[in-house]
């Protein structure tokens, strides 16, 4: 089960709306290397894991990713709050607005709706841990690209926090992979 705490993992306080930037950052909600895919990837994979260390990692990182989904959604909410129709048209946000108004809906930056095809759960510890290490690096690259596109320090600050978490998760999955390789080799 899960319990909700009424706070963000890291604060998001954006003073200036920017719908154009929201159109890009939404990819970390509903895109191929986004936080929603990350959370579902780990929380589904854990049932096939034979070792306690890795069951723990997938549960705890999968749970942290839910907090990241909330942070990205808070960024999108604040970037699109109080817009005029002129701002919506001029920024190109009208393509999203026509279907969702300013509701939060998981899509990639290209507009493709979220799909479970973005992640795997292969039932094989080696395969899944390698998928996860690659996924963390792909998300890190996406955050690097967002940092190339975003000037606003109010946006960059929480994005830099999220980027850093990808690196820590990569590190921990690497350790999980080493643990399982050591156990598997000891059988030979």
């Amino acid at each position, binding site marked *: 089960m899960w319990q909700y705490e*009424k*706070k963000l993992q*890291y604060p998001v306080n954006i003073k200036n709306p920017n719908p154009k930037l929201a159109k890009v950052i939404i990819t970390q909600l509903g895109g191929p290397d986004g936080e929603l895919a990350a959370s579902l990837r780990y929380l589904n994979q854990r049932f096939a894991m034979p070792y306690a260390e890795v069951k723990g990692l997938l549960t705890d990182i999968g749970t942290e990713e839910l907090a990241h989904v909330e942070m990205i959604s808070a960024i999108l909410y604040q970037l699109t709050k109080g817009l005029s129709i002129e701002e919506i048209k001029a920024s190109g946000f009208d393509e999203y607005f026509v279907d969702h108004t300013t509701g939060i809906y998981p899509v990639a930056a290209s507009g493709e709706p979220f799909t479970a095809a973005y992640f795997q759960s292969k039932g094989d510890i080696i395969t899944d841990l390698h998928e996860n290490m690659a996924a963390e690096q792909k998300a890190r690259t996406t955050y690097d690209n967002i940092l190339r596109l975003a000037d606003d320090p109010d946006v960059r600050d929480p994005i830099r926090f999220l980027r850093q978490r990808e690196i820590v998760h990569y590190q*921990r999955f690497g*350790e999980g992979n080493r643990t399982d390789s050591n156990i598997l080799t000891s059988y030979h």
Partner: protein
Amino acid sequence: MNEKRKLLNKIRQYDFTLKELNLYLDTHPNCPRALAMFRKYKQLRMNAVNEYVSRYGPLMPEQNNDADHWDWIDDPWPWERS
């Protein structure tokens, strides 16, 4: 920065420390230094949360402490600019 936000940030810092130690302990479950740090920060977090809840309201529904009002739903929610 107001007192409420300062205290919430302190809780976030303790939570961050505990989360980092939690993930580290998942792959180093017998590290005595990490286990000791986890115990220390758990206590610091508990004190800060108790102070926050008594002054500003619940972070979780069961922390409601107003007999006449369900303060869990009071604005602002986390995604709202504070």
